[in-house]
C-alpha cells in the first residue's frame, strides 16, 4: 500500500499533541484562582493575578493530616496563602524539617529538649486527637466491641490469636465473634500514631506489652500500612483484621471502632469529649520550653485512654523572615480561627491560654540572623 507523499498522519499526531499541550498551558495559566473545593474554576484565566503566590510546604504525621488539609483549603480562601501538606508519617516530618526541604514538619511523637537543641528545632502543639481501634468484623456494630489494654496488648503481641478467644468473649457477652484468626495491622512507616499507641500499651499493659514504645518498633506480628490512611484501607480490605488509626479516619469512613476500658475502669467510646477530658490534664506550662507531652492513659471517668497531642516542628534558625512569618501566620490563624474545623473533625483545639504560651515563649525564639521572626 503506497503512502502518498503528503501523509497526513504525522500531522494528525502532532495536532493532537499540540491540543494536549495547549490545554496544559491553559491549565497552568489558571493556577492562581482555584481554591480547591470551589465549583468549576475557569480554565482560561491567563490574565488573572493571584492574591498571593505564597505556598507553605509542610510534611509529616498522618494523625492531624485531615485537619491540616482542611485548614489549608479554608485558609487559602481567606488569605490566598496555600498550604501543601504531605502526609508521610511523623518520622518523615522530622526528617524533612531537618533536611530543610519543608517549612514545617508535623509529628505526634514529640522530641525531647536535648533532641530539639541538637537538631536546632522548636516545637509546639497544634491540636489534640484520639487514636482509636478499628476492626473488620461482620456482625459487630460500631462501638460495640469492648477491649481492655491487656487484651489489646496480647493481640498485638501475638498471644491472643482468634476472635473467639476466652479473654475477648468474656468482655463481650452476646456479641457474635467468629473463630477466625485475628489479622493484625500496624504502621509500616515511622509514625507518631504508633508512638502514642505503644506508649499507651507500655503504660497500661506493661506486663504483657514488651515490644517497646517508639515511632517504629519491631512488631511481633502484623502487616504494615503506610500512614493512618494505609492502615485504614488495609483493615477495610482484610476481613477479621484489627488496626489503630486516628479517629477522623475511622469516623469519616464509617469503620467499626471499639470501646476501651480506661484507667478509671470505665468503658469509653471515642468522642471529642473523651479526648478533651484527657487533654484537660495537660500541664503545658510545665512542659516548656520543649512542650513535650504524653497524654495517654490519663485519669478521668470519661477519658479516652489513647489520646495524644500533635506537634509542629520548625527550624530555630530561619533563612527567610517573610516565609517564616507567613508560616506562623497560618498557625496563628489555626489557633484562633480553626477551632470550628477542628471540632467538626473531632480534634480538640488547643486552648487560648496555651496558644498564648506558644506565641510568647516559643515563637520568639525563632530568629533570622538574631532578629526574632515573631511578632
Amino acid at each position, binding site marked *: 500500500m*503506497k*503512502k502518498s*507523499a503528503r501523509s497526513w498522519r504525522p500531522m494528525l499526531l502532532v495536532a493532537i499533541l499540540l491540543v494536549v499541550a495547549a490545554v496544559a498551558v491553559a491549565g497552568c495559566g489558571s493556577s492562581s484562582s482555584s481554591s480547591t473545593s470551589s465549583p468549576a474554576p475557569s480554565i482560561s484565566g491567563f490574565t488573572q493575578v493571584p492574591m498571593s503566590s505564597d505556598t507553605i510546604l509542610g*510534611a509529616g504525621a498522618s494523625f492531624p493530616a485531615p485537619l491540616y488539609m482542611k485548614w489549608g483549603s479554608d485558609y487559602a480562601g481567606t488569605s490566598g496563602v496555600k498550604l501543601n501538606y504531605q502526609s*508521610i*508519617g511523623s*518520622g*518523615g516530618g*522530622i*526528617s*524533612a524539617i*531537618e533536611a530543610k526541604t519543608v517549612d514545617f514538619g508535623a509529628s505526634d511523637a514529640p522530641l525531647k529538649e536535648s533532641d530539639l537543641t541538637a537538631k536546632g528545632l522548636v516545637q509546639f502543639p497544634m491540636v489534640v486527637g484520639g487514636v482509636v481501634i478499628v476492626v473488620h468484623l461482620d456482625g459487630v456494630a460500631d462501638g460495640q466491641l469492648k477491649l481492655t489494654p491487656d487484651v489489646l496488648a496480647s493481640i498485638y503481641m*501475638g498471644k491472643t490469636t482468634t476472635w473467639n478467644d476466652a479473654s475477648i468473649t468474656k468482655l463481650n457477652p452476646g456479641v457474635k465473634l467468629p473463630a477466625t*484468626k485475628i*489479622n*493484625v*495491622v500496624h504502621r*509500616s*512507616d*515511622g509514625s507518631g500514631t504508633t508512638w502514642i499507641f505503644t506508649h499507651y500499651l507500655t503504660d497500661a499493659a506493661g506486663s504483657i506489652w514488651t515490644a517497646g514504645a*517508639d*515511632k*517504629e*518498633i*519491631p*512488631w511481633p*506480628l*502484623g*502487616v*504494615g*500500612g*503506610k500512614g493512618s490512611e494505609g492502615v485504614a*484501607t*488495609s483493615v477495610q*480490605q*482484610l*476481613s*477479621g*483484621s484489627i488496626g489503630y488509626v486516628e479517629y477522623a479516619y475511622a469516623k469519616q469512613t464509617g469503620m467499626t471502632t471499639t470501646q476501651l476500658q480506661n484507667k478509671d475502669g470505665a468503658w469509653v467510646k471515642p468522642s471529642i469529649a473523651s479526648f478533651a477530658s484527657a487533654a484537660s490534664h495537660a500541664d503545658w506550662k510545665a512542659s516548656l520550653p520543649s512542650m513535650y507531652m504524653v497524654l495517654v492513659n490519663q485519669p478521668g471517668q470519661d477519658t479516652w485512654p489513647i489520646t495524644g497531642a500533635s506537634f509542629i516542628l520548625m527550624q530555630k534558625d530561619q533563612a527567610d523572615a517573610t516565609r517564616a512569618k507567613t508560616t506562623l501566620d497560618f498557625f496563628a490563624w489555626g489557633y484562633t480561627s480553626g477551632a470550628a474545623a477542628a471540632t467538626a473533625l473531632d480534634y480538640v483545639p488547643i486552648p487560648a491560654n496555651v496558644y498564648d504560651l506558644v506565641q510568647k515563649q516559643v515563637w520568639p525564639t525563632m530568629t533570622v540572623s538574631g532578629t526574632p521572626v515573631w511578632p
Partner: protein
Amino acid sequence: MSTVDLEVAPSPSGPRGAAIAAPRGHKLRLGDPLFRVLATVCGITVAVAMFGLAGVLVYNSWPAITTLGTKMLTTVAWSPTQGEYGALAALAGTALSTIVAMVIAVPLALVIALLLVELVHPAVSRVVGTAIEMLAAIPSIVYGMVGLFVIVPYIQDHLVPWVLSTPLGNVPGIKPGLQFQGGGLSIFTAGVVLAFMVLPFITAVSRDVLKMVPQVTKEAGYGMGSTTWEVMHKISMRYANSGIVGAVFIGLGRALGETMAVAYLIGSVYTDLPRSIFDPGTSIASLIANQFSEATRTLDLSALIALGLILFLITVLFQILAQAWLRRVQRATGGRA
C-alpha cells in the same frame, strides 16, 4: 521521497561501511563532522548516565558500607530505630515474590505463545498478540490498585482458606508462618499480580522467538507424522530455547525491580523472614519506597541507598545474563531476536 517497506532485513555492515567511509569531495562541509560529533556525544551520554547513576549510588551509600560492612547482608530485620539495617528480609521477599511470579507467568506465557504460533489463525494471532503487547504498557500503579481492591479480599476470604483446608496447606512454604495474617496482603498476592505484569513481556518475546523456527523444520516433523505437541516440544522449543530463557530473564528483571504494585500488596513486614508464600513480607524496592521519606539520620538514608545499590547490582547482573542469552539466539538463528 518514496517510502520503504520496513520489513526488509538490513544488509550486513561490510559493504555499507565501505561505501560511506570514503572522505567527501573538495567542498568544506562542517555539517558532517558536527553531526557526527553530536551523534557520538549523545550516544556516549547514555553510557555516561549509567556510570553517573552507579557513581551517585556508591557515593551516597558509602557511609553505610563503611559503617555496616557486610552486616546488611547477614542481618534479617530492617529496623533503623533499633539500629538494625538488615537486608535479608527484603532480599528474601524479593526472591520469593519473583519466584511465585515466574512460576505462574512462565508456563502461562509459553502456553499462550504456543497457541498464538501453532494453534490459531495468523490474523487472530496478530490481534491477540497486539492486545497482549498493549497490556504490557499498563502502569504498575493500576495493577497495584486492582490488586488491593479486588484480588486481596478474594485471596483473603476465599483462596487461602480453601488452600489451607486441602492437604496442600501443610506443605512447608505454604503452611502459614508466624507472620501469617490471612494471606490477603502477602508474598503470594504480590507474586500473582507481578505474574500478570511480566506475562506480556515473556509472551511477546517467546512468540517472536517461536515464530522464527524455520517452517521447513516443522514441516519435516509434521511430515513424519508428529503431533502438534511433539513438533512444539521436540523441535520448536529446542530451537527457541535460548530465546525463551532470555525472555524469562527479562521478565525476571522486571519483577525484581517492580515497586508500586508490590508496595500495595506485600504487607510491609520488615522484621522477619517469610516462612510461607502466604506470609506478608517486603521487597527491596517497596522497602525503599516506604522508608525513604523518613530516613532521619545520614546513616539511615545511606543504608537505604545501599539497599538500592544492591538492587541495582542484582538487576544489572540479570540484564547482562539476559543479553548474553539473547545474543546466543541471534547467532543461532542469524537475525535479530
